[in-house]
C-alpha cells in the first residue's frame, strides 16, 4: 500500500520536478523588492516568452536528437542559414509564404544531411554536426555576401511582435506556434511508434536493431526533424530582426542543448521530454530576464546558468540513483 503511494509520489515528482525549478527561479526574482513589480508584470512574462521562441523551437528538435543518443551542434548555424534564406527569397521578390517555406526546407535539408552522413559514414554525431556547424554558417555568410540582407516588411515580421495584430491573439504568434508544435511533438514522442523507436534507439541501439527497427532511417528522420525546427527558428529570427543576418545566434546551440539537459534529457540517450525541455528554456529565459532587470552584467548570467545546469543535472542523477 505504502509502496503504491510512494510510487505515485515519485511519479508526481518526475512530472513536476522541472516545474519546481522554474517556480523556484521565478520566486527568487519575485521576492527581490527592487524589481518585484516590474518582474511580475504580465507584459514582462510575455516578453520572456517571446524571447524564448527561437531556443524553444530549436529545443523541440534537439529533444528528439538527445533522446536518440545524439547531439546536433549545427542547430544555431542552421538557424542563421534559414534566416538568411528567408530574407534572401523575400528580398528577391518571392511571396512571404514561399520565403518562409524555403527557410524551413533548407533547415530540413541540413538536418537530412546530418542524419545521412552520421548513418552512412558511421561517424559520431558530434563530429558530423560540428562540421556542419561550420558548413552551414559559411554557406549563410556566402549567400548573404557576408552582410545583413534587408527585406521588405511583411506579415512574417509580425510573428514575433509582442503586441500581435489581431489583438485577441494576446501573445506573439510565434509563442502559439511553439505551444502547438510542443503539443504535437509530445504526442509524437509518447504516443506514436516513431516516438517509441526514438527512445529505443537512444536506450539501446543494438537491441533496437535486433527488434527489426530501421535504426538508420529513424536517425535520418530525427535529424531532419531537428533541422526543420531550426529552419522554423531561423524564420523567427528573421522575423525578429527584420533582416537576414548570417552572424546571428552564434553559440545558441549550447543554450538549446542546455535547455534539453536541464529538462531531464540525458546525453547518453533514452531520456528526455518535450515538457521538460520547454521548462528548461523558460528557466534560462527567466534567469536572463531577472538578471538584466537587476542590472547584473552578462558574465554573472553566464556563471549562474552554468551553475544551474550542474545543479539540475546532478539532482536528476540523484533521483535516478534512488529509483534504481
Amino acid at each position, binding site marked *: 500500500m505504502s509502496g503504491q503511494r510512494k510510487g505515485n509520489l515519485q511519479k508526481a515528482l518526475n512530472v513536476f520536478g522541472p516545474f519546481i525549478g522554474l517556480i523556484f527561479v521565478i520566486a527568487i526574482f519575485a521576492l527581490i523588492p527592487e524589481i518585484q513589480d516590474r518582474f511580475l508584470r504580465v507584459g514582462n512574462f510575455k516578453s520572456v516568452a517571446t524571447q524564448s521562441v527561437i531556443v524553444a523551437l530549436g529545443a523541440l528538435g534537439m529533444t528528439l536528437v538527445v533522446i536518440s543518443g545524439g547531439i546536433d551542434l549545427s542547430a544555431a548555424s542552421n538557424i542563421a542559414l534559414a534566416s538568411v534564406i528567408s530574407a534572401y527569397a523575400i528580398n528577391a521578390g518571392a511571396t512571404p509564404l514561399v520565403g518562409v517555406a524555403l527557410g524551413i526546407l533548407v533547415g530540413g535539408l541540413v538536418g537530412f544531411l546530418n542524419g545521412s552522413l552520421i548513418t552512412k559514414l558511421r561517424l559520431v554525431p558530434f563530429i558530423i554536426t560540428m562540421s556542419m556547424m561550420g558548413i552551414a554558417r559559411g554557406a549563410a555568410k556566402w549567400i548573404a555576401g557576408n552582410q545583413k540582407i534587408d527585406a521588405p516588411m511583411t506579415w512574417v515580421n509580425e510573428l514575433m511582435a509582442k503586441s500581435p495584430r489581431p489583438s485577441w491573439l494576446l501573445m506573439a504568434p510565434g509563442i502559439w506556434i511553439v505551444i502547438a508544435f510542443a503539443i504535437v511533438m509530445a*504526442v509524437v514522442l509518447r*504516443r*506514436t*511508434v516513431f*516516438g*517509441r523507436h526514438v*527512445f*529505443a534507439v537512444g*536506450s*539501446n541501439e*543494438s*537491441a*533496437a*536493431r*535486433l*527488434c*527489426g*527497427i*530501421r535504426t538508420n532511417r529513424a536517425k535520418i528522420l530525427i535529424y531532419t526533424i531537428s533541422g526543420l525546427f531550426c529552419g522554423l527558428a531561423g524564420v523567427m529570427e528573421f522575423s525578429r530582426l527584420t533582416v537576414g543576418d548570417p552572424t546571428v545566434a552564434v553559440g545558441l546551440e549550447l543554450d538549446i542543448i542546455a535547455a534539453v539537459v536541464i529538462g531531464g534529457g540525458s546525453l547518453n540517450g*533514452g*531520456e528526455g521530454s518535450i515538457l521538460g525541455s520547454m521548462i528548461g528554456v523558460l528557466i534560462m529565459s527567466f534567469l536572463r530576464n531577472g538578471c538584466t532587470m537587476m542590472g547584473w552584467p552578462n558574465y554573472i548570467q553566464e556563471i549562474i546558468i552554468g551553475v544551474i545546469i550542474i545543479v539540475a543535472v546532478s539532482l536528476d542523477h540523484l533521483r535516478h540513483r534512488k529509483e*534504481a
Partner: protein
Amino acid sequence: MTDSSAAPVLRMVQVSKTYGATRALDDVTFEVRRGEVHALLGENGAGKSTMMKILSGAVTPDSGRMLLEGRPYAPANPLDGLRRGISMIYQELNLAPHLTVEENIMLGREVHGLGWLDRRAMKARVREVLASVHHPEISPDALVGKLSVGAKQIVEIARALLNKSRIVVMDEPTSSLSDEDSARLFEIVRGLKAQDVSVVYISHFLEEVQKVADAYTVLRDGRNVGSGTMDGSSLEDIIQLMVGQKFTERFPHVPHEKGAVAVSLKELKGVRMASAVSLSVAKGEILGIAGLVGSGRTEMLRTMFGLDSLESGGMVVSGAATAKAAPWTRIKQGFGLLSEDRQGEGLALPMSLADNVTLSAYAPYRRHGLLSLARQQKAAADWIARLNIKARGPLQKVQGLSGGNQQKVALARLLHQKAEVLLLDEPTRGIDVVSKAQIYEWMGELAGQGKAVLFVSSYLPELLGVCDRIAVFFRGGLVDVRDAARWDAQSLMAAATVGRAPGV
C-alpha cells in the same frame, strides 16, 4: 625432463570463495611444481577464472591459504602478485594499441633517472626479452595496434617474462591464434619450462593441452574433481571428469513432431563466419548447436537473422530462396533472435517491460498513427502472466528484474511477434535452475506448435536433454550433425574440443 620429486613452487590449500549465493570455489587444493606446465580444465563457470584471480591477487579468498616456494603468499592486489613473480596473460589482450611494443612491455616498469626515460636501456631490455621468446623480428618501435593478433600475444608474453616470473598463467592463449602462431606459442611454453618457470595453462582445446601440458587439474562446480599427469591419462578420462554425472539431470519433455523443412541454409557464409555452412531445420524440431565460444555458432545465427551481412550463399525459407535481408525483413519472414548478450543487445534495460515485449511488433497497437498504450500494456500483462514473470507490472523498467525474468521478457518478445523460427543463443545462460527448466519446457511446447527452434548452448547436458538433433561447430566450421540419440556427452565434448568424434 621434469623432476617429479621437485617441491611444489605453488600450493593452494583448501581455498574457498563465495559470491552471493554461489559457491565459486569449494575447498580447492591445487599444486604446481617447478618448471611444470599444468593444465587447468573445466567447463565455463567451473571456477577456473576465480581461482586464477585469487592466485593473481585480484580476488581475496574467503578461506584457505597459499604457499609460494614454501613461504606464505597472500597478495593484496595484482601488483603484489606480480612482485612475487606471478604473471597473468589474459584471454582478452591487455595492451594499449596506441603505444609502441617497447612502451607496452615497459609500461609501469620504465627505466628512468629522475623521471627522464632511459630509452636506450629500455629498448635493449625489450630486444633481449623478444629474442628470448624467439621473436626478434618484432620491432620495439612498432605500434601495437598495427600488429597481428599473434604478435600481440607475443608482446603480452614478453611483458610477463620481463617480470622474472616464477609462474605464468595463460588463460585461453590460443583462442585467437592461428595454428602456426599456436605452434610458436607451444615453443615459447617449452622455453619457459627450460628456464624453470612454471606455467598454468587454461584451455578448452584438449588436444593442444595434451601436447603441451605435463599435468592437469579438472575443476567442476568449484571443486577439484581430479588431478594427474598427462602421461597417465587418456582424453576420455579427462572429458569424463569434466562432464561428471550432470547429464542424468531431468529435462521436462513435451512431445512434438517433426514437420516440413522450415529453413535450410545453402552454403551460407556471413562476413564474420570462417566457413560456409549448409544445414536445415524442420518445423516442430529443436536443433541444438554445440561448440565452444568463438566456434562460429553465434555468427551463423546473426547471419541468418541479417545482423551480420551475408558474404555468399543463401537460405531457403519455407520453400522460397532468400538472399541478403535486414533484420526487419527476417522478422516479417517469421524469424526471431534471442541474443546471447541480454544486457548489451537483447533488451533495452531503461525501457519498460511493455515496451520491451512489444518493441519488435507495435503494429497491433497502432490506430490512426497513435499507439494505444492501454492495449499495449494489457498485452504485456498477459505475457507477464503466461510466462510467470515476476514483475510489479508492465510499466516496470526491465533493469530492475532478475536475470531469469529478464530472459523471460526477451523470450516473450519473440512469442509476441509470433516468430515461427526461433534462434535462441544461450537462452539459459546465467539464470537459475527453475527458470531453466521452464525455458526447456516452452521450447518443447513451441516445437509442439510447429515452430522451428535453433538452440545454441555451451552447456552440453541441456542440449542432450532437450534437442532432437545436435550440430557441432569447431573453429568456425560445422563438424557434424546427428540425431541427439547418437550423441553422448563424451562425443559432443570431443567434437567441440578436438573437431572430431567417434561414432556412437
